[in-house]
């Protein structure tokens, strides 16, 4: 009887953990960012405060670029003609600039958190 209770408890804990993680997976919104001609499209991203966001970066240039932001504490290489994913947030309201480390003069953008 005790064994049955224990396995039932384990099963329900595992099931609720799975449900919670599935819920949070489903809840992460995604934003697309395109790198083309060493520029970011869109140059300005608006996201809600206190929300984790998945940013999918498509590099449509043949050369690699590195997405970097001191304010966001994010740094990631995106290969030429490739894509990558980074997660930002939850963030407090404000402006968080980012840039392309390989071509910083042109590749600049801003994440605005409202």
């Amino acid at each position, binding site marked *: 009887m005790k064994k049955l209770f224990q396995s039932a408890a384990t099963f329900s804990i595992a099931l609720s953990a799975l449900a919670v993680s599935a819920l949070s997976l489903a809840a992460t919104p995604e934003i697309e960012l395109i790198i083309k001609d060493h520029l970011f499209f869109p140059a300005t991203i608006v996201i809600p405060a206190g929300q984790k966001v998945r940013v999918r970066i498509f590099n449509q240039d043949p050369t*690699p670029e590195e997405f970097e932001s*001191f304010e966001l504490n*994010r740094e990631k290489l995106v*290969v030429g003609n490739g894509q990558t994913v980074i*997660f930002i947030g939850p963030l407090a309201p404000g402006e968080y600039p980012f840039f392309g480390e390989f*071509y910083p003069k042109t590749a600049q953008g801003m994440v605005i958190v409202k």
Partner: protein
Amino acid sequence: MFLNAVVLVLQEMIEAALLISVLLVFTHLFRSAWNGSFNLPTSWVIVSVVAGSLGAVIYSYYTPQISGMFDYVGQEVFNAGFHLLSLMLIFLLAYMVPHKSLAQKALQRSQLAAFCMAGVVIFSFVREGSEIIQYIGGIAGQDENFSPVVVGGAIGAGIGVSTGVLLFYGLISLSVNWSFRASLILLCLIAGNMGSQAVLLLTQADWLPFTPIAWNSSIVLPETSIVGQLLYALIGYEATPSMLQVAIYLFGIILIVVSPLFRKAWPQHRSLVEET
């Protein structure tokens, strides 16, 4: 493009250069310890630079595939792995090299020390070097940018190496005991940095949960300032670290502070050169 290349290559190189400098100071100091029986040749640096550079080329070649792994967070996973392996090697260096079981085994002791130091340097080179290779590789197709970037990169590398040399000579110019203590304090911070960087990468990949920002010191020392950049390269200074980063950083510091190697530097009424 020229200035950008100088700064970019400098930033990557300086991390590796400062790390090599600190470890070279240990190599130099270890000669005086253990009654001069510590026979660690300085050639470990050359071997690890060559191996690290080769590793950087390989890692850079496979970056597209690695990038796509684990749902496009392969880079973070691999780089965090390198950082954690480096942390383990520093742990080995601090705990096993001064261990009683190796007290009479000079050869094994120096081999272990060389293995740990070389490993940390190789991982550092693979990480930083592959980024430089990606950058230069991207510029390679653009004739008008290529030579300023290569020249700029060489200058950046030169500045990085010079900074490392400055740190090395600055540290060994102190007395033996204080060289050892200063280097150990740096080693604590480097260990903390390894853990903290791994945590940051895995948070970026959503493999670790979000934790709120612990503090914002950008008013006191912005990350973008020269001192801020230098401290970032040396010990991983960040103006807005997350709480998990700070916790792991402190863990790294404590790990080395309680290690036998650290305690050798603050013995009761004994100097480094004596050995029980």
